[in-house]
């Protein structure tokens, strides 16, 4: 069996690489790692706030894919989205095992970091800049109360019940804000020109 060259592998779509990974092709896996490790590491660091913990989480997520403990479903969108979803779920699990006191302190920082998505990021590279820009813009343009619940939930790992207690707002309001925020983000992504209006 003659393996593909790395140059050929790098020209394959993610979905095709995943199919090769499922057949234990370590070089296809390597290509996937090189494509997505940066955005994965960035999310891991954002979730956990610690470089070593972020490295452990990234390794955990990539090895889950390699070991076949996570199965790619096309319904979950792109391979990158799928990978980040795995990483996010595992990161949230780790966040929830941290102490309640520490998490509440983190919550205050997250909840009131109003300009979080708008800060200029000199470290950004072109690989995800355009998409990231659209999503950041969508976040920034959310009403403050909607952005808070999204940030606490997605990046902070808090449940809607915990967010209700943290912000002292009714549970139904939290759930409603989450839905409204996601719908608004969706519209911004679908129609990015809205962000300039």
């Amino acid at each position: 069996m003659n393996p593909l060259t790395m140059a050929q592998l790098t020209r394959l779509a993610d979905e095709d690489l995943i199919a090769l990974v499922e057949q234990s092709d370590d070089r296809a896996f390597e290509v996937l790692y090189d494509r997505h490790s940066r955005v994965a590491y960035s999310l891991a660091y954002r979730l956990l706030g610690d470089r070593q913990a972020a490295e452990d989480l990234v390794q955990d997520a990539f090895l889950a894919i390699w070991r076949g403990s996570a199965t790619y479903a096309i319904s979950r969108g792109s391979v990158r989205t799928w990978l980040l979803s795995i990483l996010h779920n595992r990161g949230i699990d780790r966040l929830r095992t941290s102490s309640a006191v520490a998490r509440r302190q983190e919550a205050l920082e997250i909840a009131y970091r109003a300009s979080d998505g708008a800060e200029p990021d000199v470290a950004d590279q072109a690989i995800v800049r355009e998409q990231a820009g659209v999503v950041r813009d969508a976040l920034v343009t959310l009403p403050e109360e909607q952005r808070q619940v999204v940030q606490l939930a997605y990046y902070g790992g808090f449940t809607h019940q915990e967010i209700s207690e943290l912000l002292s707002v009714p549970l139904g309001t939290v759930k409603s804000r989450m839905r409204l925020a996601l719908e608004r983000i969706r519209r911004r992504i679908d129609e990015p020109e809205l962000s300039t209006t």
Partner: protein
Amino acid sequence: MSIEHDDVRELLAPAALGAATPAEQIRVETHAGGCAVCREELERLRLTADTLALAVPQLEPPPRLRESVLAAVREELENRPASVRPPPRRRRAWWSGLTALMRPRPLLAGLAAAATLVVLGWNIALQTRPDPGDEVTATVVQGQGSARQARAHLIYLPGRDAAVVRFSGLEPLDPGTGYELWAVRPEGPVSIGFVNTSIANPGEGVIAASDLAGVEALALTPEPLTNRAAPTGEKLVVVPLPESV
């Protein structure tokens, strides 16, 4: 709609953001499994929530992380047992005509294939080296019979003895049934597995195949999810593999 539906619908956004409790998550998944409205809405919200991963400031992972991940993978690869081939299946009548046409008489096989398939494109996409083991070929095939709107996109890696087939334009099937892909061998069809179809777009799906030496074509049929012995449904798409297999 029921009270349960209304209650679960309120939980869809928290579930999409990972902010539901484990018990709520199970409740949402269970309900969505039987409720197309909630299932589609959950998928839509999830796809949106997943984009939030891209919005974080980008950081360069340290080189040691790459080394560590790849070392772990290669160590596991060295210790991994070889995969077991699926057992051969009993030959079915509807395959015999195809295999008889395609194997002993290549020219007639080509004509037969042309009569039943419309090959929309044959792109030798990545043949940058003369070694056939490094070839990657892509083929698009139209469905037949009641699935003429369907398309199969084959990415074939002869050097890896593997292929990926992506389907589009498939009709949604009844619960308990799925689209099964078969490897057509001279001795009969062998199940490759059920196509992993999209929840959001049931007409789309993907499946990977390996151990293709001696396989003349890949064929898609609708089958009960419990059937793995031999094809019983109408063959909807037949994808001939290049003769270099």
